[in-house]
């Protein structure tokens, strides 16, 4: 080819030239004296010098002052000493004034040049210059460098971000092995830089082994997207509470995960303090509530006591007023009739009248006595000075005796007395005088409140539990609930006209109730207006003595 190229252009060997024109590199062949023997289409295009104009001339003549010294030296060395040379685009800028492929002058093209010594047999040495446009390769490399620089900067930024994070960040293999860790993670677990790499996550957080056993993939997956609290172990064996969350790193076919670990000891401490404070607060609130409750109870008690005291005071005032009235009435009668007898106001003619007056005086005195007795008894009971005897009492006998005592009063009021006392009653253990007093009181009341032709029944029985009940039933006027409540208070019925009329002491029922309480029993009154009244003395079961023992 080169031999042909040395022939004059158009001398019939143009096929070689045509072939050189097809090559997308610049081809220049110089003869031994440096004259251009071949100038292909590529180089013609890039220099703007047609092959016909170039052939036979020297390069420095074609481009005076525009051929680089390095290229001229290389050509000289090649033609004179047979050295081949390579001139790289990196080290040589524009060895020849070549245009870019796109005619763009702003971005000068870059070319690699090979200067090759060609010697065949005894023929003179020639120089083959091969010029390759490496602009696009160079541009690609610059772009690649730019990309690499940008990526390195991004990596540096991310690395900085990871390293400056306060949280420990671990990159995990799907088998739970730590691939890398940031400095915060190493500090958290007390490791030297790089000391966590290759360690299984379970060695730092042993409780993870309990999640899915040895199936680390499942364990790690179960942590994705939720925060969990676990105890974590430092290198020195100390333990701290940690919060762990995991996310999957996408992209590769290999599953990788990143784990975020945070030391939450301080938060836990705050939570505990908060809980303690709450508990203390709750205790204090409770204590305060208790104090408030006590205060309220005390207040209620005080109020109750005040009301009681007021009531008691009122009762006492009423009592004194009634007392003076009750005592004065019989005394007035006594004094009045005694004065009439003393002055013999009816003379001596009707001596019987004085006997009647004397009877009045005696009755008033007796009433006064019973009043004073009841008062004394009540006072004694209230003072706690009353003691009771426990004697076996034959209720039937005692009841009949009481009925006999009340016979006179009953006849006066035309009230029939009926005894319903079984013969086989077991003896009652009680104070005989007091039981008799209670029976008389109840019978007296019954007779007093029973209208003529009415009747009063005295009954007694021992129930299956051995409790003795004494009943006084009358067919009298009866009472409503209000009257009954008043009747049970000392002088409660003092204002009652009926009572006045019947000259009750007003102390009977309260006294009976107090005496029953002394015996451990109770007074029960069933009554309704117009329905009569039934008063029951219920003695507790232990008050009964076995029949046969008494009999024995």
């Amino acid at each position, binding site marked *: 080819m080169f031999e042909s190229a040395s022939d004059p252009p158009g001398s019939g060997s143009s096929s070689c030239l045509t072939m050189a024109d097809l090559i997308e590199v610049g081809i220049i062949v110089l003869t031994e004296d440096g004259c251009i023997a071949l100038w292909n289409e590529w180089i013609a295009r890039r220099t703007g010098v047609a092959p016909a104009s170039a052939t036979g001339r020297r390069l420095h003549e074609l481009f005076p002052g525009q051929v680089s010294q390095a290229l001229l030296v290389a050509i000289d*060395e090649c033609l004179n*000493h*047979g*050295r*081949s*040379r*390579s*001139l*790289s*685009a*990196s*080290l040589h800028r524009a060895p020849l004034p070549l245009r870019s492929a796109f005619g763009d002058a702003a971005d000068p093209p870059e070319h*690699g040049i*090979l200067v*090759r*010594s060609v*010697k065949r047999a005894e023929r003179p*040495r020639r120089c083959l210059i091969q010029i390759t446009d*490496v602009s696009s*390769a*160079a541009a690609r*490399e*610059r772009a*690649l*460098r730019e990309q*690499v*620089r940008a990526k*390195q900067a991004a990596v540096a930024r991310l690395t900085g971000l990871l390293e400056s994070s306060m949280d420990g960040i671990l990159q995990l293999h799907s088998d739970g092995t730590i691939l890398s860790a940031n400095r915060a993670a190493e500090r958290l677990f007390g490791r030297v830089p790089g000391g966590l790499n290759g360690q299984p996550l379970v060695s730092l957080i042993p409780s993870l082994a309990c999640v899915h056993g040895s199936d680390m993939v499942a364990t790690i997956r179960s942590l994705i997207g939720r925060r969990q609290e676990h105890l974590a172990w430092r290198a020195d064996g100390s333990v701290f509470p940690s919060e762990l969350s995991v996310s999957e790193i996408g992209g590769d076919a290999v599953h990788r995960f990143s784990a975020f670990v945070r030391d939450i000891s301080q938060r836990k401490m705050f939570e505990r303090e908060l809980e303690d404070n709450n508990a203390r607060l709750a205790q204090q609130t409770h204590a305060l509530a208790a104090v408030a409750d006590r205060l309220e109870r005390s207040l209620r008690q005080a109020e109750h006591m005040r009301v009681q005291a007021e009531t008691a005071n009122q009762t006492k005032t009423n009592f004194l007023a009634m007392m003076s009235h009750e005592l004065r009435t019989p005394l007035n009668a006594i004094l009045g009739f005694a004065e009439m007898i003393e002055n013999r106001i009816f003379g001596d003619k009707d001596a019987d009248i004085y006997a009647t007056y004397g009877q009045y005086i005696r009755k008033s005195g007796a009433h006064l006595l019973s009043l004073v007795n009841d008062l004394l008894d009540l006072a004694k009971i209230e003072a706690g000075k009353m003691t009771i005897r426990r004697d076996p009492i034959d209720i039937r006998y005692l009841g009949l005796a009481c009925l006999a005592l009340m016979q006179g009063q009953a006849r006066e009021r035309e009230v029939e007395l009926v005894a319903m006392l079984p013969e086989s009653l077991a003896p009652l253990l009680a104070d005989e005088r007091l039981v008799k007093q209670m029976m008389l009181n109840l019978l007296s009341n019954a007779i007093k409140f029973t209208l003529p032709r009415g009747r009063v029944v005295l009954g007694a029985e021992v129930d299956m539990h051995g409790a003795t009940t004494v009943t006084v039933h009358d067919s009298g006027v009866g009472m409503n609930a209000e009257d009954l409540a008043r009747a049970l208070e000392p002088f409660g019925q003092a204002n009652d006209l009926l009572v006045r009329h019947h000259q009750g002491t007003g102390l009977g029922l309260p006294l009976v109730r107090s005496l029953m309480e002394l015996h451990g029993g109770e007074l029960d009154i069933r009554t309704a207006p117009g329905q009569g009244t039934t008063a029951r003395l219920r003695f507790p079961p232990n008050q009964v003595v076995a029949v046969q023992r008494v009999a024995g």
Partner: protein
Amino acid sequence: MDGRFDFSAEITDAVVEIFNISVNRAAAALSALGSTEVVLNVPTLDVVSRDTLPALLRQSCDGRISGIRQSFFGTIEGDALLLFPERESLELARSLVPNPDEIDDMTEMEREALLEVGNIVLNACIGSLADLIANEIDSSIPFLLGGEPEQLCATMISRGQSDLLLLRIDFQIQERSLGGYILFVLDLKAAGALRRAVEAIVLSFRDA
């Protein structure tokens, strides 16, 4: 000639001296190009067998080797090689090419630059040799090569050669503490031609 390398101490010294001069010229060329100082050690001349060459290369450059090879033709024919550990060849290329970004592989432009550096060094050596023996030696264009020492030796040395003359010149590029060496691989015929040429020089010096 007995078919084996037969270099007297005197001839060996002369060869070493000749190459020393060549290499110094190369160093000057290289320093001018890279604006960095290149220090070349005194060459050593050894005869080695083809089979021991890989092991010898490994002593200096463990791992893969990069290099530039230029063949030369004329009175003496053989191969000239400039060899570096691969890593260092990259460093050298980076020292020549502006914009030294860390890209793991050598880029095309870096390869070209490295090729030219090797070309300059080897041409200087070949040129000195040619000057010395006052004979024409043409050099081929340079090629880059790389690989494990065994692969390298298999591709660059033909099977027929059993013994090789190994001219070794260690060099360092200051500032970068890079090192490598230059090998001239001559076969028996070439070695004989070299010896005769050197003997002629030595004789001419004696006569003078």
